[in-house]
């Protein structure tokens, strides 16, 4: 379910690097235009609030058992904590976390490539643990904090890892890059001084068909302040 026109426009490149959209050189990005033409992400919560009022009581029943909650199959309100901000989305239980982020919240930095957990292009973190958002139902995330590529830069400043990715040109087509950055940032969170072997293991699920792995290794080690090892590949 990779989106169309994936190789064009400022919107894609800004989403890839995690820089907030609209701050790129053009004021009207491809994605910004598409959003403006349709439902805006900012109004999603408002619409959800209205729909909530109309929600049928039958959508959620306990059947007298306090240990069972039946949800769906129609849309139900789900609260997602994404990069520290709570969003309420109205989604069917079958909605994956990747789809909730991209389609319902307009956060298209997370990429869906294989949609089967095979490539890790859709990697996000749940309480700082990297998972495949395409193989996670949004409804089961619960109170866990979701981290996406959009939350990596802080206060308009790129994360050191993003700076290192740019410096080392650690991408070619860039489609795997958000997932790579999420895997590597999660690694640095739990292991600030990784070895080359640690970095290789951290991205062992992230498929890069351009084969830019050596530059990802170099960028991650530099961001961690670890001297590169002799053979990086």
């Amino acid at each position, binding site marked *: 379910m990779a989106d169309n026109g994936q190789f064009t426009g400022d919107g894609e490149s800004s989403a890839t690097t995690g820089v907030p959209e609209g701050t790129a050189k053009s004021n009207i990005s491809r994605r910004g235009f598409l959003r403006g033409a349709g439902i805006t992400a900012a109004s999603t919560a408002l619409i959800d609030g209205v729909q909530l009022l109309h929600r049928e009581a039958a959508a959620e029943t306990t059947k007298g*058992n306090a*240990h*069972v*909650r*039946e*949800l*769906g*199959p*129609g849309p139900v309100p789900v609260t997602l904590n994404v990069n520290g901000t709570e969003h309420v989305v109205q989604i*069917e*239980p*079958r909605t*994956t976390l990747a789809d909730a982020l991209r389609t319902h919240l307009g956060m298209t930095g997370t990429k869906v490539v294989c*949609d*089967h*957990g*095979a490539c*890790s292009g859709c*990697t996000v973190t749940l309480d700082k*643990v*990297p*998972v*495949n958002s395409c*193989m*996670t*139902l949004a*409804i*089961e995330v*619960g109170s866990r904090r979701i981290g996406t590529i959009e939350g990596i830069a802080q206060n308009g400043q790129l994360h050191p890892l993003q700076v290192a990715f740019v410096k080392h040109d650690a991408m070619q087509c860039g489609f795997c890059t958000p997932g790579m950055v999420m*895997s590597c940032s999660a690694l640095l969170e739990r292991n600030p001084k990784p070895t080359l072997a640690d970095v290789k*293991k*951290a991205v*062992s*699920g*992230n*498929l890069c068909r351009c084969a830019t792995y050596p530059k990802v290794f170099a960028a991650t080690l530099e961001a961690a302040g670890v001297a590169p090892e002799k053979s990086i590949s």
Partner: protein
Amino acid sequence: MNKFIFSDCTSVDAALSQMTGGAVVKAGGVDVLDRMKNGVIEPAKLVNITNIPSLRGIHETDTGVRLGALVTLAELGDHPLLQSQYTVLADAAGHAATPQIRNAATLGGNLMQKVHCWYYRSSDFACLRKGHDMCFAYDGLNQYHAIFDTNVCPSVAPSSTAVALNALNASVELTSTKGKRLVPVREFYIKPDDKHPTMETVIAPDELLTAVLIPKPAAGTRSAYQKYGEKSSYDWAIADAGVVLEMQGDVCRKAAIVMGAASPTPRLAVEAAALLVGKPITEETARAAGLAAMQGATPLSMNAYKVQLFPVAIYRTILLAAGKMDRDPSAAG
């Protein structure tokens, strides 16, 4: 993916009450969602068990270790006790799939995952294993399929933790409203037969896999798991071996050798293990055991290479278990 009711359960009893009318149990969801996305199953209800606290945790007991069904593959691979005393299991779980999948996939789900034959996993093929008339793998693409027990459905056992647990002679705890029963992993999986080609395990429709119990290993026990594949990560094994050795000094007193991707169920290589007993583990005995494990192999049109590959996987894993060889850098995971 079809629409479904999401039945979120917080107790085992609640989950058991929901397992009716074609409902499918979902833990980490890696295998279930994959089959739903492929249109192979279209359940009206998913019973979510990930919020049941009693199914979590790795607990050391007087008799061994008890693993909750919701323990993730990452937790198994990283656990110090498992790494030191149940190395074969930590190795198998820690080298399965990808880091992202290991963080979500559960032990119970890994044991219950369906076979990965591409005909089975495609909604375009009405195959024998899905309850239809014919197997497409025999005359089709069968390079990753079985070399033993190929007479009905030659898809291979997909779970690497099942290989390890078979070697450790572990048991699964199955819970229903009627109570609990323990089934040895060696009896849990069923070879597909003509009458019941769709059955993969002995679990009943009203039973939930709630835990795995592994007996405490005898003194001198050493173990290892290695898999070989086309890719160094993500992929399922094309040949893998789990080895448990009970050593007394240099001499092997007891051995279990299990192959995963050789047969529709994890295959205990009894003849191979017998060759090690009463002898020191050397390159020679390990090689002989690897070759003996291939007795009776019936490879298909495209997978005779496995008859060459498995002996290598077995002999290198025996030496790894015995501490006489490092982990093979060409092994996957």
